[in-house]
């Protein structure tokens, strides 16, 4: 992306806003490009490339906050109409502040991939999955790349700019055997410029997906009851990402968080530590400022199971009488600012265990490898969840026969309290704009309905 603060059209637009009588002007500019390449049956399935740009304009009009978004600065009368239309509808919203010092935090630089070489790698990965005798079809085998640059500009043309992006590979395989069907998905970050490393990672993920789909074949029902549980790393990372809103200041203020009124209380086991670490190499997020221009920072959310940290944007911080924690992120570029996080990482306060050690300690339990239904079945207001799950029985300390078509249910605080062992195998999963990282965990028990 170019240095937009030098763009004559933007300079003129900001000047025009001031002439029109707008004050406290602030522009949020998001510019994004993304690419997708996928194969199926050893040929290109789809290739997609695109770029988008959005301007989110904030200002004050006759002393009241106002805002609007647009993808073009040309229809100025329309922008003026939308800005004045929103003025006065917000109660007590703080006006945008000037940027004290211009800074450029950008680190990413879009690198074009070699399409043919990338196609070759994807075909190799598909072939690797298909080499498993139970794999019938590779439904998804794709490479994705995106980069987003955000820039904040104030009425004096001071600016802050930052960017983020990643390069990822996803594979989903379908295994079939004797009328039984099972699917497994694996994904990971790749180094697309290092062809050998990319090939190795893609083939390894494809082989693991094939292996997991094979394990899931001939799944049986399981009787309802309470079972000891091992939640695989990707499952716990998904849960961790989904429940991030329980730490958001706005939800705690409005009593729409399962942690409302519990600051300082023991909400998890003493082993449990949950942090936000924008600088961790385990996560995929690389932002240095949030969408409101506040610096991101490392913070502790749960310490020895005690609820310690709250994530604030400027608005929720002002309501709580504290400072923003640098967690003002927009759910999308055209939206008003919300709350989110960078990399949120579940850790052990003490010893960590291998997956094998956890399985050996979980006789008669279930190893959960996949959950579905998070969107509706995991409620961040109450903390309750009831989710479709599948996995394998644990027999003699080992992963045994596949089980599916059952639900696991409980409450997130109850689950945190019941964690008995934390693993050493962290993986990431994206949850909105945040990245959640978790290892495998062993939980005392969960209710299972089969």
């Amino acid at each position, binding site marked *: 992306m170019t240095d937009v603060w030098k763009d004559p059209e933007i300079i003129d637009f900001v000047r025009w806003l001031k002439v029109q009588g707008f004050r406290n002007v602030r522009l949020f500019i998001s510019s994004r490009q993304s690419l997708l390449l996928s194969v199926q049956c050893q040929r290109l399935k789809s290739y997609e490339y695109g770029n988008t740009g959005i301007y989110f304009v904030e200002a004050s009009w006759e002393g009241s906050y106002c*805002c609007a*978004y647009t993808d073009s600065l040309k229809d100025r009368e329309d922008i003026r109409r939308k800005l004045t239309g929103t003025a006065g509808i917000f109660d007590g919203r703080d006006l945008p502040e000037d940027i004290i010092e211009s800074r450029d935090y950008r680190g990413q630089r879009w690198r074009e991939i070699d399409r043919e070489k990338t196609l070759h790698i994807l075909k190799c990965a598909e072939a690797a999955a298909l080499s498993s005798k139970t794999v019938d079809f590779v439904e998804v085998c794709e490479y994705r790349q995106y980069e987003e640059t955000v820039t904040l500009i104030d009425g004096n043309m001071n600016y802050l700019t930052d960017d983020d992006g990643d390069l990822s590979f996803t594979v989903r395989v379908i295994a079939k055997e004797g009328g039984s069907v099972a699917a497994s998905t694996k994904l990971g970050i790749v180094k697309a410029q290092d062809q050998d490393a990319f090939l190795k990672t893609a083939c390894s993920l494809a082989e693991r997906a094939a292996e997991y789909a094979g394990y899931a074949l001939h799944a049986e029902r399981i009787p309802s009851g309470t079972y000891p549980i091992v939640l695989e790393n990707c499952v716990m990372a998904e849960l961790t990402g989904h429940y991030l809103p329980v730490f958001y200041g706005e939800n705690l203020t409005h009593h729409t968080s399962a942690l409302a009124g519990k600051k300082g209380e023991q909400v998890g086991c003493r082993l449990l530590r949950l942090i936000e670490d924008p600088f961790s190499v385990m996560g995929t997020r690389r932002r240095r400022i949030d969408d409101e221009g506040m610096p991101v920072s490392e913070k502790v959310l749960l310490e020895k199971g005690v609820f310690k940290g709250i994530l604030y944007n400027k608005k929720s911080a002002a309501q709580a009488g504290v400072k923003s924690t640098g967690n003002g992120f927009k759910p999308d570029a055209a939206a008003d600012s919300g709350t989110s996080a960078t990399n949120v990482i579940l850790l052990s306060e003490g010893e960590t265990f291998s997956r094998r050690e956890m399985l050996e300690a979980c006789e008669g339990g279930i190893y959960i490898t996949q959950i579905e239904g998070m*969107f*509706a*079945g995991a409620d961040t207001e*109450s903390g309750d969840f009831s989710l*479709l799950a599948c996995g394998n029985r644990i027999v003699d300390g080992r992963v045994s026969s596949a089980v599916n078509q059952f*639900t696991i*249910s409980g409450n997130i605080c109850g689950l945190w309290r019941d964690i008995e062992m934390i693993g050493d195998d962290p993986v990431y999963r994206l949850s909105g704009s945040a990245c959640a990282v978790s290892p495998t965990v062993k939980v005392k028990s969960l209710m299972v*309905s089969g």
Partner: protein
Amino acid sequence: MMLAESYIEKILDYAVSCGADYGEVFFEDTERTKLTLMDSQVLRCACGRESGIGIRVFRGLESEYLYSADANEKRVFGLMKERLGKGGVFDKRTPLSRIVPNCITMRETAPRDMGLKRKLDYLKAAAAAGKSGDSRIVQGRACYVDEDQRVQIANTEGVYARDRRTRCRIRFMMAAEDERFGGRQICYEGPGAMMGPEYLESGRIEERARRAARSAVNMLGARPCPVGRMPVIIAEGFGGLFFHEACGHSLEGSSVANGCSEFAGKAGEQIASDKVTLVDDGSIAGEWGSLGIDDEGVLTRKNVLIEKGILKGYMLDRLNARRMGLEPTGSSRRENYRFAPVSRMTNTYIAPGTDRVQDMLDSVEKGLFVMDINAGSVDPVTGEFNFNTGETYLIEKGRITVPLTSATLIGTGSEILPKVDMVSDHFALEQGYCYAGSGQLPIGVGQPAVRITEMTVGGKEL
């Protein structure tokens, strides 16, 4: 501001010159307003406009899709030259001819012609009406969205169409608390229509906020849902999401064309009980999930997917229809120009039957009565679906007894569809969103009350 037809023709000519055997242009200019209200306070507001172009080409079964927020000719041709090739292959395309979309928008007022403050007043009044009926309602939230999307769609097969899609929806969330019971109960109502913001003036909105409030109060004192397998009755209306997930997604071209769906290759076979007739109809005037023309320029229509239990057809976009050697069905959709279109549902419903709800209740010794479903999802390959229920009650000896905290219903489409043994005569269509491959889309779901002889219920009490 729409694109000149001559410019669109130039883009299609270039696509053909790159050796593509199909080329398509989609352009949109969309104005949108989103408002979120908690009690009487505005939490969020976003008003704006964005436009963009999407260009898609097929080479056999390979698809390439380019999109840009900047539809400027220099930018677009630069993108095509860089990504599709330099052109130079001589080929012809079918000249463009205009297609007139189905007239389904009931708009009287364009969204931009009603001021934001007036919209906000209607919303506040409705939320207040919901809260006013019972002191146990402790919080009322309302999310409003209106959208005015103008699209142009053209392709190398000669289609040229313009359409204007104006939609409006409100989602109420009412929270009830009673210190005698502890715990907060939240219920939802989400009416919407293919109409302008005059929808807010219809008077029906306040009643929907009150209904959400009544449901939340009814749920106070709810017991943990029992686990296990039991009969389930799902009431008319948004319960239709059950069929949207249990078999709708598995009948979309993106699932069927590669042979992975549990219903692939089963056309003509009995896949449900003979009580089940499933329809997807994107041409219903005024409905939230409707379109005058789909996002590939095919007129929307009524597609009968299952008739008396027999699988009759699928929902197909152009690429997947090509893969299957069939014709597209007017089912191709996308959230916006950033997404390539694929087959998606529009308004999906089960046709009414002849059974009475009271007879359904009388037939159940112990089971669930689900008034509303919050949301669900499915894996079309395995057919495994899950739903989280909203207002739900226990049925004991033919009588509705106590409310139950939200249950999860699971199963597979092929297992459950034959178990639909009663379908009532009272039908309702409701509105929501579907999140899948080509983004977040407005959908209608509907059904009369249905009884399923046995389902797995996930709850918290053994």
